């Protein structure tokens, strides 16, 4: 399990302080809701039908007992004694009070957790197989790859304002327990001629337009994965629609261009990343 470095700890602590300041300014009327909304969304805080909702990231669905106990403590102290584990391995609290959200985030930071990039048009929490590291027919444990992608995508300046939200899943065996094929990018670790790499799918999704992802690469050596992800994201960032929220996901772009055309654009960007 990944352990925060001192730099990680400082970043998360300063982020909590920053959000606390923003909440205070909102409550004092120095920020309007229009100004505050993008700031709260960057910290996973929505306003829903009944109340606020805070979505907390659980990177690739892995929790220590200490973290789980902290979540239970938060549920009891700041919410209604329960939370909702989501299909993408996060947890949501449905009744937090705005005033108390910075305290909740501070509690989370004490166990190396946060709510950053759980909302907004950025790369969301990386999800994986809940049996990762346990299943017999796994080519390789996908969690280190999830962690590498998490680190690469967190606060990525180029991919923080994509046309729409962006979800990635990584699996290490043939069984798709992470529903990788209905993610914006799905990665499956495979072995070809004794070389380990990725089979890559793109443009899957659920919601009002459910689509199964299309294969964009049969095999990619694992050393090239971040370059290839960058190429896909760059293509989407440049070509994806921003004028209509319902047509802004990458699945619509892939469907409109066709996988062949989309692949050729990605490959062009991929080779540029080596120059």
């Amino acid at each position, binding site marked *: 399990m990944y352990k925060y470095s001192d730099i990680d700890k400082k970043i998360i602590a300063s982020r909590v302080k920053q959000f606390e300041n923003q909440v205070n300014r909102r*409550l004092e*009327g120095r920020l309007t*809701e229009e100004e505050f909304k993008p700031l709260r969304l960057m910290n996973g805080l929505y*306003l829903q*039908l*009944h109340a606020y909702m805070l979505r907390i990231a659980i990177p690739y669905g892995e929790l220590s007992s200490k973290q789980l106990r902290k979540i239970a403590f938060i549920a009891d102290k700041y919410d209604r004694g329960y939370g909702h584990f989501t299909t993408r391995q996060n947890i949501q609290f449905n009744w937090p*009070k*705005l005033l108390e959200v910075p305290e909740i985030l501070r509690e989370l930071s004490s166990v190396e957790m946060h709510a950053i990039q759980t909302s907004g048009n950025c790369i969301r929490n990386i999800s994986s197989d809940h049996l990762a590291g346990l299943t017999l027919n796994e080519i390789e444990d996908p969690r280190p790859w999830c962690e590498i992608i998490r680190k690469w995508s967190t606060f990525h300046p180029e991919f923080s304002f994509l046309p729409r939200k962006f979800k990635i899943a990584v699996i290490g065996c043939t069984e798709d327990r992470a529903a990788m094929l209905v993610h914006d990018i799905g990665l499956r670790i495979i072995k070809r001629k004794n070389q380990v790499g990725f089979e890559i799918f793109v443009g899957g999704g659920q919601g009002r337009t459910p689509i199964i992802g299309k294969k964009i690469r049969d095999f990619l050596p694992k050393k090239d994965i971040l370059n290839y992800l960058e190429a896909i994201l760059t293509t989407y960032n440049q070509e994806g629609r921003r004028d209509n929220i319902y047509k802004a996901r990458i699945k619509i772009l892939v469907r409109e261009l066709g996988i062949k055309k989309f692949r050729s654009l990605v490959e062009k960007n991929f080779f540029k990343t080596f120059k």
Partner: protein
Amino acid sequence: MVKKLQGETFLLSANELRSGKVVFFTSKGWSSSSSEAIKIKVDEIERYEEISIEEEKKCIIISPKFVELDDAGNIKTLRDKIRNSGITIKI
């Protein structure tokens, strides 16, 4: 807020800024009980819209909306019924 309205009678609702809870505008201010809410005729909407803007500026509420009532004076849409009476499952 007013443009999409249909119907004759409404309640003014919102979320409380600090807690996020659903509230309704009554003669004594905001309340979580819709039964105490003022029934607003369609020709009074503008006046209550001004009130909601002021209440937002005072950082008391967010996301104000008018809730349509049916002929019997009950909340009309399922969404607003759920919003009023809370979650539909026992936890």
